[in-house]
């Protein structure tokens, strides 16, 4: 099959971030003193387990960031034309989930639609009944067999998953035998996770595990797709926050005087506007700009994607002030220390003092602030999308899922699965991020006394 790689703007930023991560990991590995706090992180069981969970989310997000477009069947012209629909590697892997769309809502693991319809039976009589789903449980002759089948599939799935998990755990144990990792909680959680994944896989092959939404899309697929949006909001934003906060914070602290005054004025002004309102105002303006320039985008995915990147930019511009203030305070403290004064006395240039002495010594603050911010940003996305100033409505995200499902609360019986799925996925992601952030803070904060 012919296809062309489509690299969206957010993909580029994801690759950039990934490259930065790999580079810094490599750098840290070379330096024992930088590795030390990470060893402390590795000793914390909660940190390693939450890192494992985050890692799974990252894999899904990354696979979902490799975009391509399929070539359309060739017409007489001879020139290959590519479909305007942008797909990702993840979409390809989850193709059954993506393409098996029902007519409308159906409950998790259901074999029938959620609402009654008039259907003609074999004799031609029209009856009001719940019509069978096109895909969910289609292999069953009658709906009554469902419970047994679900149980059988779930059990085989769990067993297969556990077997795979056992294999991974054994390999990992061999590999990490010499290291100081706390292995037991990690191995147990690997088993739990693979068991869950196995069960979901096996069930998803024949059912809609988390039901379907209004237009019949599989909720599990939507939830997995939302991960990328959440991760991008949480990580790409730091690409904006970091340079701004680092540059302004250190400049204000190091040079003081009018530079400090100007920067302080700037961040007081930005800070004094309630952040939701500032974001709303900026996003409204961005919407107008995007509406005015339809020629910038060749397809709707590119347009939704650019809006996502802009949203990250806006979130970054409105949220650098906190980190900036921390960095300014720390730099003010550092510049009075003897080794900086010694460097100044030796005639070392300001630029060199900043890069050699100040920046490395504020790195722990930056790292702590970045990991702490991540979860807040993921939660903010949902709220902003609800308010109407979040991601593009066509983009799948936790916010748009909640927003779409919220209106169905009033139905009887209630359509709860889309909401529950979005909240559950978000909870797992944010909880893992919070726990990991706590461990990182504990390991890097020099104010905490440690008896080591």
């Amino acid at each position: 099959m012919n296809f062309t790689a489509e690299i969206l703007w957010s993909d580029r930023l994801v690759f950039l971030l990934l490259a930065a991560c790999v580079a810094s990991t490599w750098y840290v590995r070379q330096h024992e003193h930088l590795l030390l706090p990470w060893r402390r992180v590795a000793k914390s069981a909660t940190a390693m387990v939450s890192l494992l969970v985050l890692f799974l989310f990252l894999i899904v997000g990354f696979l979902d960031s490799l975009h391509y477009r399929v070539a359309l069947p060739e017409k007489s012209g001879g020139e290959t034309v590519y479909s305007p629909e942008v797909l990702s590697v993840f979409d390809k892997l989850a193709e059954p989930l993506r393409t098996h769309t029902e007519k409308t809502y159906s409950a998790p693991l259901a074999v029938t639609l959620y609402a009654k319809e008039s259907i003609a039976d074999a004799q031609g009589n029209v009856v009001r009944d719940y019509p069978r789903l096109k895909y969910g449980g289609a292999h069953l002759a009658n709906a009554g067999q469902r419970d047994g089948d679900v149980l059988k599939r779930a059990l085989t799935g769990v067993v297969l998953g556990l077997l795979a998990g056992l294999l991974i755990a054994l390999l990992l144990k061999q590999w990490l035998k010499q290291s100081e990792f706390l292995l037991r909680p990690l191995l147990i959680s690997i088993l739990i996770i693979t068991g869950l994944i196995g069960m979901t896989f096996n069930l998803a092959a024949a059912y809609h595990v988390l039901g379907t939404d209004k237009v019949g899309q599989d909720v599990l697929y939507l939830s997995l797709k939302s991960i990328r949006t959440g991760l991008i909001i949480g990580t790409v934003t730091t690409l904006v926050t970091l340079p701004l906060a680092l540059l302004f914070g250190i400049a204000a602290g190091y040079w003081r005087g009018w530079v400090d005054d100007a920067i302080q004025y700037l961040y007081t002004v930005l800070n004094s506007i309630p952040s939701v309102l500032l974001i709303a105002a900026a996003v409204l303006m961005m919407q107008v700009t995007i509406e005015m320039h339809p020629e910038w985008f060749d397809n709707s995915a590119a347009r939704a994607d650019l809006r996502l990147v802009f949203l990250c930019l806006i979130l970054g511009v409105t949220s650098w002030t906190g980190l900036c203030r921390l960095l300014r305070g720390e730099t003010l403290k550092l510049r009075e220390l003897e080794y900086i004064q010694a460097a100044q006395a030796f005639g070392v240039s300001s630029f060199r003092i900043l890069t050699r002495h100040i920046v490395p010594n504020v790195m722990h603050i930056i790292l702590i602030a970045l990991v702490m911010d991540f979860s807040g940003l993921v939660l903010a996305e949902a709220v902003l999308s609800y308010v109407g100033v979040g991601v593009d409505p066509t983009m799948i995200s936790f916010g748009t899922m909640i927003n779409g499902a919220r209106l169905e609360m009033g139905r009887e019986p209630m359509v709860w699965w889309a909401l529950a799925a979005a909240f559950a996925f978000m909870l797992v992601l944010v909880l893992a991020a919070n726990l990991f952030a706590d461990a990182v803070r504990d390991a890097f904060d020099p104010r905490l006394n440690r008896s080591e």
Partner: protein
Amino acid sequence: MIAYLIRRILYAVPILVGVNLLTFVLFFVVNTPDDMARMQLGIKRVTPEAIEKWKQQRGYDKPMMFNRAASGTGKVSDTIFWQKSAGMFVLDFGYSDDGRSISREITKRMGPSLAIALPTFLIGLVVYVTFALLMTLFRATALDIAGVALCVLLMSISGLFYIIGGQFLVSKLWHLVPISGYDGGMGGLKFVVLPIIIGVVGSVGASSRWYRTIFLEEIGKDYVRTARAKGLSELRVLFRHVLKNAMIPILTGVVVVIPLLFMGSLLTESFFGIPGLGSYTIDAINAQDFSVVRAMVFLGSALYIVGLILTDISYTMVDPRVRLS
């Protein structure tokens, strides 16, 4: 004290000017009024005359900052900046797109906002501090660890979940209070109870955890050891000494938000159908009513600055060492 206050207020002026300029740039320079007119009237098939008419009706047909055509003070005052932005300094917010006075809407909607926000704030403060004190009292025991774990769990849950879950459980399943609505006076009580509870529960995790760190920092200090050495009970140490001394860091975070209570909460108000400033803002955002959003941005920052000044004053009240000069 008075001199200090006056200086602080004067210092607030350049910040408000900055906010005003920022909103002006955001709303009028990034996208010209022409763009906005086209957006509002529909992108396609819009005639230049229609745009001109739209601009004229809303007073956007003037030059941005400087009017060469006018004479005298009109050079400055007959511009978009002067008419739309500068007026906000004297709290003249102009008219919304549906032709109503924004200032009047604001005064009308402040009450409902406050009816939710103020009780949420006060009850929340008591609950969070109590919870944090309890965790401090049982520090380093299983209770404390369980408390912190609960906090982390609670703060990992989306705020939307608390609202949607609360509405579902209390209003829909148990039929205790109406799902949404608002009424003035005592009759409104049944409408505000649920939003207040949800508001308190929604931030119990983050806040209690924060107060706990503050208390733990205080409890390591020398005066606490002295107080214990002279034989005070742990409870007395906590309430008489630690709580009092922790007031400064607590006030820093708390007093700033008091004026912002007027603005209400965007989410709570729109979910519960409370006619406050929060839902006003949301409606304006959804209707793309730029003048209302602009007014709310300015009002919000003005209130925040008031909060900063109040914070400074409150320091002198709880800490006799602080002298404002």
